[in-house]
């Protein structure tokens, strides 16, 4: 177990190094940074001086090591556009995105899993067929369209919910939260649904498919033959055995939720990292873009690590030492 964790940590480290290298390379491949910093009438001498002061005359591996050293200390440079440290800019936006992703993931699981179980258990009922048909819409409609339709209906026609922004937020020092005010919670609803819908239908269809698979197994038939209640058979024996693939997909999808919150954040003008990133792209704000890349990669690596550890809790076959398998 410990060996496994250490191995996974090392693998994660390698992934992060590669990503950091790609992020670092962006500075060199997307134009000469000196050009972006000096005026058009700067002399060649001034350019050389700036280049030396910034350490850009060093070979690239020295530059990379310096970049890594700074990154480890939390220094990702200064945003060209905002004129503030990138770390601060991201830290300002991170809570908004994470709260949105948290709500969306929660919604996807809390609704998707029960719907999947229901449609798996009662696949011939008309309600299951309705859910399945609706899930096709969730899978096939693009996110921005769902967002715009929700805004049109709930914000424009009904006027129940705000169409953009986070509402009032409470500043808790390093974290600003929208959970503590009514307007903050109201503002969360539409973006969360928009972001969650695809994941929800995915989770539902996955759980349904896995349930159908598991319900055919011998141990479910044997559990029934032992006279266990339907609840114990369906939610204990069957659902438990569908969890490994569900955890895998959900974990990967949470990473995607963070990364692809961009579209939802744009539609709802949600002041999160995705919106920051899009603005950075428009202004070729390379420090922000490269830091965003590193941060998202970090989330993916972290979530994958957590998913791998969760397997251990769910499936005893992975945690046990095989040596004890006894003879006859």
């Amino acid at each position, binding site marked *: 177990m410990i060996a496994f964790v250490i191995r996974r940590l090392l693998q994660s480290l390698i992934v992060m190094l590669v990503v950091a290298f790609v992020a670092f390379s962006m500075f060199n491949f997307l134009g000469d940074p000196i050009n972006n910093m000096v005026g058009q009438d700067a002399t060649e001498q001034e350019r050389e001086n700036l280049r030396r002061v910034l350490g850009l005359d060093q070979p690239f591996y020295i530059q990379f090591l310096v970049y890594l050293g700074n990154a480890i200390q939390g220094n990702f440079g200064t945003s060209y556009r905002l004129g503030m440290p990138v770390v601060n800019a991201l830290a300002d936006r991170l809570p908004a995105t994470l709260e949105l992703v948290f709500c969306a993931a929660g919604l996807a699981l809390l609704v998707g899993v029960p719907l999947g179980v229901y449609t798996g258990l009662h696949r011939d009922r008309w309600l299951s067929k309705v859910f399945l048909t609706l899930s096709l819409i969730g899978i096939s409609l693009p996110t921005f369209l769902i967002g715009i339709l929700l805004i049109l209906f709930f914000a424009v026609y009904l006027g129940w919910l705000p169409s953009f922004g986070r509402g009032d937020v409470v500043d808790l020092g390093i974290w600003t939260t929208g959970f503590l005010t009514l307007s903050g919670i109201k503002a969360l609803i539409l973006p969360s649904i928009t972001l969650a819908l695809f994941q929800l239908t995915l989770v539902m269809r996955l759980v349904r498919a896995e349930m159908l698979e598991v319900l055919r197994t*011998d141990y479910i038939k044997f559990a*029934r*033959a032992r006279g266990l209640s339907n609840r114990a058979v369906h939610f204990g*024996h069957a659902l438990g055995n569908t969890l490994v693939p569900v955890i895998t997909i959900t974990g990967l999808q949470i990473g995607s939720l963070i990364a692809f919150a961009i579209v939802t954040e744009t539609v709802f003008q949600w002041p999160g990292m995705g919106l920051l990133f899009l603005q950075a792209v428009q202004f070729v704000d390379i420090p922000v873009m490269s830091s965003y890349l590193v941060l998202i990669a970090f989330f993916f690596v972290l979530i994958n690590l957590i998913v791998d550890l969760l397997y251990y809790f769910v499936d005893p076959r992975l945690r*046990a030492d095989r040596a004890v398998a006894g003879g006859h």
Partner: protein
Amino acid sequence: MQNSPLLRVENLKVEFPTRRGRLVAVDDVSFDIAPGEVLGVVGESGAGKSMTGSAIIGLLEPPGRIAGGSISLDGRRIDNLPYEEMRKIRGKHIGAIFQDPLTSLNPLYSVGKQLVETIMTHSDLTPTAARERALALLREVGIPAPERRIEQYPHQFSGGMRQRVVIALALCANPRLIVADEPTTALDVSIQAQIITLLKRLCREHGTAVMLVTHDMGVIAETADRVAVMYAGRVAEIGPVRDVIKNPKHPYTIGLMGSIPRIGRDEERLTQIDGSMPRLTEIPQGCAFNPRCPLVFDRCRRERPDLIDVGPFHQVSCWKYAEGVGHA
């Protein structure tokens, strides 16, 4: 056998609706099992033996269904009970053992949890008392160091050990009947004998009746009190195991016995029944065995024989023994 039977199956008919019409998997099968008696049910794959077992425990896989006849336990009809009622009988009054111990146990639950769960479903024992009972059961089925083993998961047990656990699970609530569907087929030959001996001993000690479904005539000869030979969904012959083995009446049984090698018998070659069992879609008119029967005569092709007495408790469905039976 004369006094009230524990299980009475009368004219049982199991059907599968398919696109090409209804398939009759079990046709007009009747037999009794007395308390404490072991009835062997033998036949080729597809003869309807497992299907009969599934019908008795009320777990026919849809779309299979009981289309006629009745099943009574202790004089109470159980084939038409609602699911919840039948669930309370399963495990408590009728235990089941399935073919493959490797897939009969839920891989995510420890052996102890599966035992305790089953015990607590059928009794009012406290968790501590249920655990004590689970330990006693594991000891009874011959699992060494049960205190340690009870915490372990199925993958940590060998095939033979798992089948012992399955037997313990079937015996949890002291049922009066156990339906054992090919309990040794998936095991090593050396383990098979152990499991059969164990099953036989436990059922004698607990006074449990067994319906032992198998295609292994050796297992039947060793274990059963009576044997029913099934062919193409019908009972071809039923009687005390000694009579059926020593003095088989039905041409199919005669062929079956001739095809078993015996030590100490200097026959040059084993007999073989020509042809193969008809598919359920192509069961011939009259006696289902008539195309393969060496003694076939006219009547066999026209009319289906019913069970005819040929000795004490020995019945056979063959026109050859029908002298004197009225024929219009």
